[in-house]
């Protein structure tokens, strides 16, 4: 390979990373300027952030989003963990089939999931609201949590469990004292991945939410429909930056614990 090729490639990569991050940087910068549209730096302000914090609609939407995301994480992580356990430990008839059907929601377009659930809820006369959003989120989260926990499970050393059993622990004790602690990082990873999925989901929620209950992404969407405003920039920055900080701190902590 000629000597200029790596340099050219580096240049291309730099542009692509810029492409991946420039829009978010622009969003952040715009959230800190006083004017609605600007090209030059026109001073620094936090007034749009104050506006976000003082906006009752946004606060309500955050509440709804948390009321969905927190139970969703707990329930789908629990179900995903036991499903992963069963799929990995037990050999049974139709295991392959079960596994491929289980992953269908992962490849189904969000739009189709949303529409199918909307028709289903209408069909059984279930009133749309927080509850229907939660049910929908759990159903697209279970395949995800199962997948993440199975990935961790495959790295567990089976001999540790065999040793526990040989030393007289029954199956339940082995699971509680050996398997679960070994699985903890996987379970935690599943929960950490599911939370933003549920909290940020737009498309499925868009179809299965009723009139009264708006999650934060739905609220942001209706604000966007009304036009670009610096308050959306501030809110968008918070939505993007807060999870990033959490993830960065999380990975640092994980590194240290290893």
């Amino acid at each position, binding site marked *: 390979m000629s000597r200029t090729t790596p340099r050219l490639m580096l240049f291309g990569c730099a542009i692509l990373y810029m492409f991946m991050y420039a829009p978010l940087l622009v*969003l952040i910068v*715009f959230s800190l300027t006083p004017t609605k549209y600007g090209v030059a730096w026109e001073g620094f302000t936090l007034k749009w952030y104050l506006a976000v914090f003082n906006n009752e609609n946004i606060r309500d939407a955050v509440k709804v989003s948390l009321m969905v995301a927190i139970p969703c994480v707990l329930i789908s992580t629990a179900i995903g963990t036991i499903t992963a356990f069963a799929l990995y430990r037990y050999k049974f008839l139709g295991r392959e089939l*079960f596994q491929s059907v289980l992953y269908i929601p992962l490849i189904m377009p969000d*739009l189709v999931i949303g529409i199918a659930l909307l028709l289903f809820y209408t069909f059984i006369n279930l009133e749309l609201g927080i509850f229907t959003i939660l049910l929908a989120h759990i159903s697209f989260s279970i395949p995800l949590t199962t997948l993440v926990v199975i990935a961790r499970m495959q790295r567990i050393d089976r001999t540790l469990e065999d040793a526990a059993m040989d030393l007289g622990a029954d199956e339940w004790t082995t699971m509680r004292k050996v398997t679960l602690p070994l699985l903890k990082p996987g379970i935690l990873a599943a929960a950490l991945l599911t939370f933003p999925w549920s909290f940020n989901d737009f498309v499925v929620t868009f179809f299965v939410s009723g009139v009264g209950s708006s999650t934060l992404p739905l609220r942001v969407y209706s604000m966007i429909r009304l036009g670009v405003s610096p308050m959306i920039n501030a809110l968008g920055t918070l*939505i*993007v930056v807060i999870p990033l900080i959490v993830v960065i701190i999380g990975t640092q902590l994980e590194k240290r614990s290893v």
Partner: protein
Amino acid sequence: MRTFAVLSPSAFWLLVFTLIPVGIVIYYSFLTRGPWGTIEFKFTLDSYRQVMDPLFLKILARSFKLTALTVVICLAAGYLVAYWIAFYGGRHKNLLLFLVILPFWTSYLVRIYAWMILLSDHGLINNFLVLLHLIKEPLPLLHNQYAVLAGLVYTYLPFMILPLYAALARLDRSILEAAADLGATSAERFFKITIPLTKGGILSGSVLVFAPVIGEFLIPELLGGAKAMMIGKFIALKFLGLRHWPLGSAYSLLLLTIILALFYVYLRLGGGREAYREQR
């Protein structure tokens, strides 16, 4: 028996909240739309006849075109990034990969909105060009197919980079060295060794980008106008705007069939097997 008990929560959830709802979509696709968007419980094949509607076929063709373009651009760009990280990443490898994955944790709605700030009539690019006196009137950057394409590539590029990187990282470097020793040029090594040996990653990445893009609803909704309609947006319009549920159901099933067929072909071609082997 115990297996059954342990699996029942997820089996129950899968049945009630995925399989039965899809069954109901199939059921609705055979019903009749009454006046005012009501449903008449009368069996008909009308919705399936309308799949042949020229307008729908046009939108379907455009969706395929935009999706194919997205896959090709992501493949070229993703290969470059993945190759760089795998071969020249050095000690920055983890950081560079982390930056690729990071967007998965953020709001996809907000990330698409960020493109609206860049591209709108009074957005950053237009204001900048006006300031430089390069243009007098803002250019119509938003609400066209190019804006949609930019948003699609931006959103789904990480789906391409990750499997490509996995394939490139597994590539046995000694084969490349052997080829060089035997006099192969760098272009020959790349096209005859690197690309064929990373075929699995290319296939996985392409499927992972194709599947969500063909059914994409939000990106054409926000960045495309009426001119850049894609099948996902069209289905949503049938459902929410016109309340034509039977027709929307038939179109949704068509979309689902396309994606399931794609995954079937992918698995048949041996896709995903490498990842499986890796896990063991």
